[in-house]
């Protein structure tokens, strides 16, 4: 499996710069408002310092009243400013996140399906859920927190500098140890927390699957095994949590022990300056209070840095999806005719050994071709080449004389449909689940299509075509889901159908019902069926036997039986079950 790419740091930085660039105005406003709010927030300690000075100088009650009122005013102004700052920041975050996820989904939809399959859909699923969400939280919550904390800290330390440069220098006393321990921590934190999260998720999964498979646990007497397995998971979680705790122990103790350093130093320096009358007592008090006040934003900044780092990593994975070249648009919009021709097609998965070794095949319009052969012979690969999902490494697959991969993908899908064992019910109404195959279809046509494939159950749904189905709503059974997929095909009306064991994953009775529905779809089309049971082959116009990536036999059923090759052997073993069954 070749994994999906992950963007490197440069690309991520560039993307961030571009994002900020697009919202230049919004970002500017947010920063300005937050700075103003922080300035207003700095006033109370300064005013308190002034009160201290005035009272020492023997001020009146009226002065104190005025100053206290000023403190209250500053609190209100600061709150108002920060409200608008926060709101503007929030809007910016929402916009940026919306852009990001829409971009991600449209990129995902543009991915060539072969790339997704090779990477495993799990990777993409994780990116679409965990990573997009992580980036979302980061942009919406973490970045604003960090920005606010950063602005506040800058202003707090700036204020101390303004009171007196030497006090300002003293205020920086705690920074070296904090910075170095933070760097130490950040280098280790992300992977440790990811391990912890993964371990916790595995434990939850163990509990959930044990519950889901409870009957199997009882039937196969797996109780002890499940307990052993789960206990192992619990130990893993415990170990992972201890590891992160060890990191925090070092980090927090150093940081917390560093907090009093600037306060202490400012008091000492203040005492010295005071003795030379270079500052007032109020200034020293205000500086000490500022530093005390700086603890909170500093704490927040440090706590969220790790999260921001994780957001950065997730962003790299989200951007990585965009780095896969999108499915190339076709060169030829249409083709003449519907004749499928395969010439000398060879294929290998990601530079592995060839799975198909030179396939030559012609399928006439309206013909029914069955492809049989043992598992691993390359039947599904051939189906994918015929559907244009993969391009042959060598040779050509063409329809009406035009290489199939040159067709516009949308056009190609309209003409050739691949039906596999997989079916998927999309979240949405029944109508939503049908309309994407044929956007112009009327409700009447949809109902007719459903009836054609035997999906009369739709009539019993509470809201008919408007009934919500899929994950989180009404769940359809496997047969119903497959019928829905077939109704979609009726609407899409492709001239060529490729069936890759379309009913193999269903239980036998469901499979039977689905097969009946399938018959309605096949009429009047070119059908290439990867056969599961031999009677399909018996009924087809021609049969191709695939073995080890080669077509070893091809011809009508009767011809092949007469030729007395591998197919004839297989047929006889099936056919003679009834009369000369060995006992």
């Amino acid at each position, binding site marked *: 499996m070749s994994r999906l790419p992950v963007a490197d740091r440069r690309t991520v930085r560039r993307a961030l710069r571009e994002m900020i660039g697009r919202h230049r105005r919004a970002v500017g406003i947010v920063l300005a408002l937050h700075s103003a709010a922080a300035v207003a927030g700095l006033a109370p300690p300064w005013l308190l310092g002034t*009160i201290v000075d005035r009272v*020492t100088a023997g001020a009146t*009650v009226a002065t104190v009243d005025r100053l*206290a009122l000023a*403190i209250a005013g500053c*609190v209100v102004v*600061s709150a108002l400013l*920060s*409200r608008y700052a*926060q709101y503007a920041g929030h809007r910016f975050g929402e916009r940026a996140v919306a852009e990001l*996820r829409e971009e991600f989904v449209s990129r*995902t*939809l*543009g991915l060539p399906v072969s790339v997704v399959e090779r990477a495993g*859909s799990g990777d993409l*699923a994780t990116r*679409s859920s965990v990573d*997009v969400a992580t980036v979302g939280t980061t942009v919406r919550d973490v970045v604003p927190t960090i920005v606010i904390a950063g602005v506040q800290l800058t202003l707090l330390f700036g204020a101390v500098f303004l009171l007196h440069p030497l006090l300002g220098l003293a205020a920086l006393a705690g920074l070296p140890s904090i910075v170095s321990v933070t760097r130490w921590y950040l280098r280790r934190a992300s992977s440790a927390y990811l391990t912890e999260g993964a371990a916790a998720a595995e434990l939850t999964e163990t509990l959930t699957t*044990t*519950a889901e498979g*409870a*009957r199997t646990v*009882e*039937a196969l007497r797996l109780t002890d095994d*499940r*307990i052993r397995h*789960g206990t192992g998971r*619990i130990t893993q979680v415990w170990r992972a949590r201890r590891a992160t705790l060890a990191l925090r122990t070092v980090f*927090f*103790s*150093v940081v917390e022990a560093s907090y009093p350093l600037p*306060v*202490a130093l400012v008091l*000492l320096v203040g*005492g010295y300056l*005071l003795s030379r009358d270079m500052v007032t007592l109020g200034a020293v008090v205000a500086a*000490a*209070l500022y530093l*005390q006040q700086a603890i909170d934003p500093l704490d927040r900044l440090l706590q969220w840095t790790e999260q921001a780092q994780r957001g950065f990593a997730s962003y790299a994975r989200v951007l990585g999806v965009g780095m896969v070249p999108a499915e190339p648009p076709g060169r030829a919009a249409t083709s003449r005719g519907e004749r499928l021709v395969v010439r000398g097609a060879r294929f290998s998965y990601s530079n592995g050994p060839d799975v198909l070794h030179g396939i030559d095949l012609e399928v006439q319009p309206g013909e029914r071709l069955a492809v049989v052969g043992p*598992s691993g012979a390359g039947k599904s690969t051939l189906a994918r080449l015929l559907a244009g999902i993969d391009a042959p490494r060598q040779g050509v697959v063409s329809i009406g004389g035009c290489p199939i991969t040159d067709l516009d993908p949308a056009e190609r899908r309209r003409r050739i449909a691949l039906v596999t064992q*997989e079916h*998927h019910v*999309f979240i949405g109404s029944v109508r939503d689940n049908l*309309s994407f195959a044929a956007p112009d279809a009327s409700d009447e046509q949809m109902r007719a299509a459903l009836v054609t494939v035997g999906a009369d159950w739709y009539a019993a749904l509470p809201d008919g075509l408007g009934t919500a189905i899929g994950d*989180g709503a009404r769940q359809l059974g496997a047969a119903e889901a497959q019928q829905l*997929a077939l109704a*979609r*095909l009726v609407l*899409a009306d492709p001239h060529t159908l490729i069936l890759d064991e379309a009913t*193999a*994953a269903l*239980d036998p009775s469901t*499979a039977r019902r689905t097969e009946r529905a399938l*018959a309605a779809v096949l009429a009047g089309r070119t059908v290439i069926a990867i056969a*599961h049971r031999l*009677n*399909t082959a018996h009924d087809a116009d021609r049969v191709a036997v695939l073995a080890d990536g080669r077509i070893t036999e091809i011809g009508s059923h009767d011809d092949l039986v007469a030729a007395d090759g591998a197919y004839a052997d297989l047929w006889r073993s099936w056919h003679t*079950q*009834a009369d000369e*069954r060995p006992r």
Partner: protein
Amino acid sequence: MRYLWWLVRRQPWRVLRGSLIGTAWMVGLSVRPYLIYRAVDDGLRARDTRALALWVVAIIVAGVGLSYLGIMRHRTMTFIREDAKARSAEVLLRHLSRIGAVLPRRVGAGEVSTIGGSDIDWAAQVLTLTGPGVGAVVAYGIIAVVLWSISPLLALCVLLGVPAVGLVVGPLLRRLERAESVYRKQQGALTARSGDIVAGLRVLAGVGGRDLFARRYAARSQELRAEGYRVGAVNSWIDAATVAIPGLFLAAVVWLTARMAVTGEVTIGELVAVYGYVATLIVPVWFLLEGSHQLIRGRVAARRIADLLNVTSDDVGGPGRRWSGPVPDPRRPGAPAGPADLHDPLTGLTVRAGRLTGVAADDPAEALALADRLGRYVVSDTTWGGVPLTGVALDEVRARIMVADHDSYLFAGTLRDMLRPLADDDDGRIGAALRAASAEDIVDALPAGLDTPIDARARTLSGGQRQRVRLARALLAEPEVLILVDPTSAVDAHTEARIADRLRAARAGRTTVVIATSPLLLGRVDLVAHLRGGRITATGSHTDLLDSDADYRHLVARGSDDPDIEAADTEEAYR
């Protein structure tokens, strides 16, 4: 609540230590304002360098001490919480592993996942209240005493004011959480949609419709953005209020204290200290408010855990039906000592000991019900060697009779774990079972063979591969009686024929029931029973039944997958 108490009692010393350290830390928080106040009053104002140096050293020492207390508190609390989580997970695990087949009927898997994913955490979170909770109360008291010594009036204002502020701000924050939760829900739905698109990508590649999905998603995304704007407008006001209200309170206290300072009732240092105390007092008050909220959630979580633990396994099985026959005597299980016939009076089926029996059922639901009765997953009158099956100890039934459902669960692990989770079997036996299930190619195709990790339900394998793994697993267990439900419905004819032969050899001399409609399987069994309309209507060899039973002929003919073949056509093909 009893459950929470149980979790506490498992680790009394740790909880006690947590309380002590938590208290010390919380009290220690108010030390720094005091020390700063002394440094200002005694050192700076009095211009006493020695005193200043002394207090500054005290500030640093106290800082280091506080950081030590803080981290010890955090460590102890983390251990308490993790201990509680691990313990909860363990009891749940043991319980879930034991309940067995009734569980899915009583509890949804989604609920288990919620309990395992978040309820355990919520319940454990309550325990961390023990330390800081006590600490908060003590710290509050100490600050009260100190303030009282400065000025009783101020003390009253602060001690009543801070909780009042908390009570005003608390509900605001709760509202914020609610507004957020609506947003989060919508966000979750949107995430589900993108996951849905990813999951259906292959379908979209097969039939088209990508643009439509991109547009639909974008529309939803814009709706969420609009909701986000709304939430942001409300939240930013609430946030501003939560900052402004305590800020205004602080301003009022400063004003009051400053007036007292003017009249000389308090010193300048005390003025600074009061400012610090008010800020410090916010920590314990928050803890108490937050704690009460957590306690509520934790209790709900604990109740859900306890409810799950109260689901008991049900010895006799089925819902709504009660065993009316003789009450089984636990001292004399009365199970047949060796292989014996199974008889199901409801359908009239008799499974001969040591033979391979095929059951072809018209209605798959009836077949499943039959398997449930034979395997005693429900109450029935089924007998085993003449003894009512319901009277035999369940453990013994499970050990000797195995029902292998066609959708039986595959747990995550290496393929080896999947196949034979309990035994220390050598690869030879595993290889034999894989061969019997014609599943060697699955192992060969996996990168690390038997040691390749496979996820739950073996989603990475194809339907046919999964089925063969299940079959191999059932064969490896070597039960005295093996009941296979549709073991080969998803494999191709070639493979099915091979399995039919090998299965026969692998189970030679042992009681085996194969419930299926495939002629390839039924053609290889000793005796076929035709289950139709709830009764066994005919028994005999496959060939006999093909000749004598038209319905049977029709039934096995339907096992084809090409609906175009007319019935007559198919019959001909089968003959």
